[in-house]
């Protein structure tokens, strides 16, 4: 069972894909401006899905900041957690 998704792990995941330190990730930046491509998004997505978050590619790709990503992930994570109980 993979580690559950936390804001720290979310930051760390982004930092890894953006070649930055976790503290350097600007959550207000847009994924496009950060230089992400669809394969990176898919790879991140797979990681978060494995952590139990029900989220799709389009859901992420259409959002224009990492902060919006986290908001979505958190909603879905809670939703999933509720469904589990």
């Amino acid at each position, binding site marked *: 069972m993979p580690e559950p998704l936390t804001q720290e792990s979310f930051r760390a995941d982004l930092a890894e894909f*953006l070649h930055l330190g976790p503290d350097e990730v600007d959550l207000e930046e847009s994924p496009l401006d950060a230089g992400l491509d669809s394969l990176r998004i*898919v790879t991140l997505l797979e990681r978060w899905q494995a952590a139990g978050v029900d989220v799709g590619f389009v859901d992420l790709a259409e959002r224009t900041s990492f902060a919006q990503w986290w908001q979505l992930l958190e909603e879905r994570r809670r939703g999933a957690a509720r469904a589990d109980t």
Partner: protein
Amino acid sequence: MPTPDRAPARTSADTPVGTTTGTPTGTRHPLLAAQEGIWTGQQLDADSPAYNTAEYVRIDGPVDTAVFDTALHHVVAETEALNATFVTDATGRPWQLDTPAGEWRTHVADLTAGPAPYAVALAWMDQDLARPVDLTRGPLFGHALLRTGPEQYLWYHRVHHIALDGFGLALVARRVAEVYTALATGEPVPDSGFGTLESVRAEELAYRGSHRRAKDRAYWTGRFADRPPADGPAGRSALPARTFHRRVSDLDPATTERLRAVAHDLSVTWSEIVLAVTAARLHRITGSPEIVLSLPAMGRLGSVSLRVPAMVRNILPLRVPVTSDDTLRDLTAGVSRELRAGLPHQRYRYEQLRRDLKLVGGRRRLSGPGVNIMPFEYGLRFAGHHSTVHNVSAGPVDDLAVNVYDRSDGTGLRIALDANPELYTTSEVAALQEGLLDLLGTAVTTPDLPLRKLAAGPAPAPTSTSTSTPVPVLDGGPLPGPVRPVLSLIADHAARRGAAVAVEHADTTVTYAELLGGARDTARRLAAHGVGRGDVVVVALPRGIGAVTAVLGVLLSGAAYCPLDPKAPADRTARLLAGTTPALVVTTGDRTADFPDHAVLLLDRPAGPGGTAAPSTPQPTDTAYVLHTSGSTGRPKGVEIGHGALAHFVAAAGHRYGIRRGDRVLQFAPLHFDTSVEELFLTLCAGGTLVIRTDDMIESVPRFLDEAARLRVSVLDLPTAYWHEVAYAVSTRTAALPATVRTVVIGGEAALPERVDRWRAAVGTSVALLNTYGPTEATVVATVADLHDPALAPGDVPIGLPLPGTRAAVVDGELYLLGDTLARGYRGDPPDSSRFAPLAALPGAPRAYRTGDLVSVGEDGYLRFLGRADDEFKISGHRVQPAEVESALLTHPRVREAAVVGRAHADGTRRLVAHLVAEPPAPSASDVREHLRARLPAALVPSGIELLDRLPRTGSGKIDRTALSEPPELRAPTTGGALERTIAGLWRQILGTGTVTVHDDVFDLGAQSLQVIQAANRLGTELGREVKVAWLFQHPTAAGLAHFLDEGSRLPSAPAGLPSALLADTALEPGIRPGTDRVPDGSPRRVLLTGATGFVGAHLLAELLAGATAEVVCTVRARDRAEATDRLHQALARHGITLGERARDRVTALPADLARPGFGLTPDVLCDLAATCDAILHNAATVSIMRDYATLRAANTGSTRDLLRLAAVRTTPLHYVSTLSVAPPASRSPQVPEEFLPPHEGLRYGYQQSKWASERLLEQAAERGLPVTVHRLGRVVGPSGTGYVNERDFLWSVLRAGIPAGIVPDLFEDEVWTPVDFVARSLVHLCLGAGRRAAGPVFNHATLPRMRLADVYDGVAEYGYPVRRLPPARWRQELPRATDAAATTLAFLDSAEQAAAPDLRLGHVRADNVRAGLEGSGIGSPSLDRDLLFRYLDHCVAAGTLPAPAGRGRPSRATPAH
């Protein structure tokens, strides 16, 4: 080749977009920028299906086909992009119209009943994919549901790329799965969630004016400001073809796993590793220091288009610098950086960037091969059933496209390599794919090893091999027969055929008897001077009969001859003489002063009182000649060639070149060049005629070829440098290769691939082109390659294999020659003598000559010349062979000649300087360099580029490299013609600028695709002809386009003087079209033959009955069947053909009159013929050289039309026997193509006109898809076996009239002859036999060498009829009018006189289709030799149509052949 400014194919928005305009209909929308790119690409080739993209989804489980069909209709209806068509407005601008897809049908098929259902399904998809879509009508898509197993269905989905990109296709597929699942399970269909196209347009419009776009533009124009070269491995670009080569491989799970692991380790994605490896592989192939890839980009991040099926994909150019020291880790880091920098700017349109950078049109490219990563696993489920997605086509391919699919079953990656067939062969694609996978496999295993240490497919050939590698030995095979001394061979011809002409020069000829007599006189004079075996006699004479006689005379005396250049400077002559120590100098009186210290024999002075000394006979070990070559030391060396070597060479080369008795070989080379040895001895030893050229013959190439034609030369032996000129002139049609020439031998330096390609394109493969290589030290020629071999790849110029009876070895890349043709050594003992030495690397250490030439041995076993070991020099550590750079220069379309030299500077540095002769408008130096950069390592790109009017050449025609330090003169620009001015004027209007000159590249001036399309349309209207959009991309200057339009695609205009009825008769009724009931392509069971009672027809009938089992219905002009049968049998008997009982039973004679409508047959009979005959051979025609068209049209043209009508009913193949006389004469067209012919002014006679009109009808039938072929025959002469003569033949009438009178007319120079039995067999094979799949539809039956009238008359004389040749007019006057034969021919000549006696001689007749069709048929070519002519004459004597010749030895001097 051109690339328009559309997005390159295969690779994922922002010009004129807007909201729906307020047009009256309210349904017209501007195109999205990406769509405009696709639309433009489609306009380049409107009928191309290349923009169809397709995939299929394999569903594992049962499918309810009716529900599936409903689901598809549901999804299509809600997908806006699929309910559209495209129109253009008056300005040529495209618009998208909302057009409901309307009625369309899913193709549903259950293939499980038949064999191989999956393969059948894939084949069906290929078929469907090949259908072009009409954008103005739609529908833009197609669906099929194919059942390939009890629980397996393939859903095939095709969409034109203008509607959807790959992501759009995926959105639709996902939606279909969703709707089907809902319908199948009885659930309500959820909302599609699709956004509107309007929202995408609005977003694109907003971006257009945004600050963001300005930033994106600044990024890209900055990053590509230097416009790096971007060609792929092909080294050139091309428009996408209609199809592509695809090679699919699956990366095994282990490698895929390692790839993912390494990606994780390097903190990148696997796609970056694939990009890095692809760049590394391309670098290894091209040597380019930087690879520019094309990356399709989805272009949807943060965009509304994520939820809209549409075409928004963009392409990102990605620069990847590569060196062989890079590791995978280095490369990937670079790729990753570049990608992260570029991705934020991915919305800026690729097409716009090309316009910004002026990289549109011509050969300009922004980026090279594509790499398309598809990371999307669909994982679609159809009512719970699992499925996998498979791509079928991702759209057109510009160059190469590496498509990588993450397979949804998680097993690994699938890599589909797509390639443009214009640029790559399937085997090249396979090799590329293999190399890529190999490198990927090793790189992910060792990511920290430099690339140069990674094994990855075939690396470029090493420049030197280690001595431990085995020495390749090439063997020329055995000699065909015994080696005989040259003097004995020549003496034989003098004894047996003494009257045959041995040598011709200007207006003088000598026979073999005279030549040998003269040589013997010379030998006696030499003997009288005490000259004999062991001596060397210098021959200093100008080329001519005297020199040939002297050479033979020296040999007969037992001495060796040493030719000296009579025009050489005195000091060189003195040095050569000092080293040669001749016993005697043979020269002319005016040269005495040049030989003050030598005994001289003056051949132009009468012989003194004859001595009594008899000449001695030379032995094989005696020296035959001494020729001087310049050694590497600069000191001339006398090469001593023995009689044995000469005899061996003559036996080997004579056989290899196929020199024979009837040949007329041009003597081109000066005597002091060893090519003269080849010309002289090969010809005289074969009994041919040596035709010595005059000095002024080579004033110009057209003059040279005209003279060669006049001299009826059959073999040309040319210095390669001169042949380069000839090839150029022939390819540009400024001169035509004489039709008499059947073999061209070249040698002396490396043949340029570009010239070889030009030659092959212009001349075809019917004329032998022998590339010879050899040093003087190995007797003229050592290796030979057939450059006319159709199997040779373009650009490949091997030097082939050693001559028979000799061998060659390659040691450390250098060529060594072995065998009996090696020289005895050098006269005296110069330092270079060590070049002859035992070769210890071979068993027995045989004697070998070390050539100093670098070669490679290809996989085909042929040698290829790489350069001189000592020409090679180094620049910045690179070994440079000037030839390599020159070859690359010559691939530039405007570079005509090139010479590259390394110029050393005072400071010791070397600079590479290219000297060019260019086509106007001359390319700029930067253009040339850019061209080279894509082809050569940077060190090989010359730093100096100089334009010259012509290259300096040495006396022997070789490029004078030392003279290339002369200051260059720039070529003057050309002034524009009317067409150029028209085009430039048009561009001024369209571009709205007053400054377009004929040499301006319109793309440099900012021309955009839409404007190009406008220009093409307007130009087409203005010129009243089709002008393709692609042509404007290919020829971006007005001058270039005008030249292309003039030369490349000249349109026929109806010439004056053709009867008006003729043009009216050449329109085929629209109703004549292929019927539905197509005949199966098996052997025919019933054949309709017309004209069976004629000369050709009777032999065709015999051949039809001899081979197949088919019944033959023959139309015969008769009142009833009995008379028809009777006439048919009479005709067969008259032509000496007897049929067996069974064969007779298979023939039906049908009374018919081809000149009457419907052949005078009842409708019932016609219907029966149409229903039962499964092939038609239309051979009947009224042959008359005097009747006019009006009297021939019914029988000759009307019959063809009626037969086409008959054939169309069941799409029955119709084969038409035509005549070469429909072709324009050589004066109008240098060659006769195997194509239908436009009207021309050479159509002067009624018969010609009627046959041409028939061909014209067949041309239209062929265009409509009717299976027709046309077979053009030349003069059909009697069967080669029997010597039977067609008495009605015009030429034989002339001979029958002329021979008794002792005079013959010089009617023409040469013509195509084909024996009737040969042509009948060929025809039946090509029409009905195994050859019927040969490419056609036009076949010129002209595979045999042309018959020269002069040869015919020579033969007539040799046969024993003394005849004088007269001009036709005089012949007519002098001919006694008593005989019938005379009366007939005179009547024709009178009429020809009225028609101003035009020269009807044809240019070179292409016969490639016939040759290819006959290959492997076992139908051998008969030889049109003197024996055959004698058999014909025998026949005439036996038949009493000619008197027996008065001379001795008739009639049966020819051996009958059977």
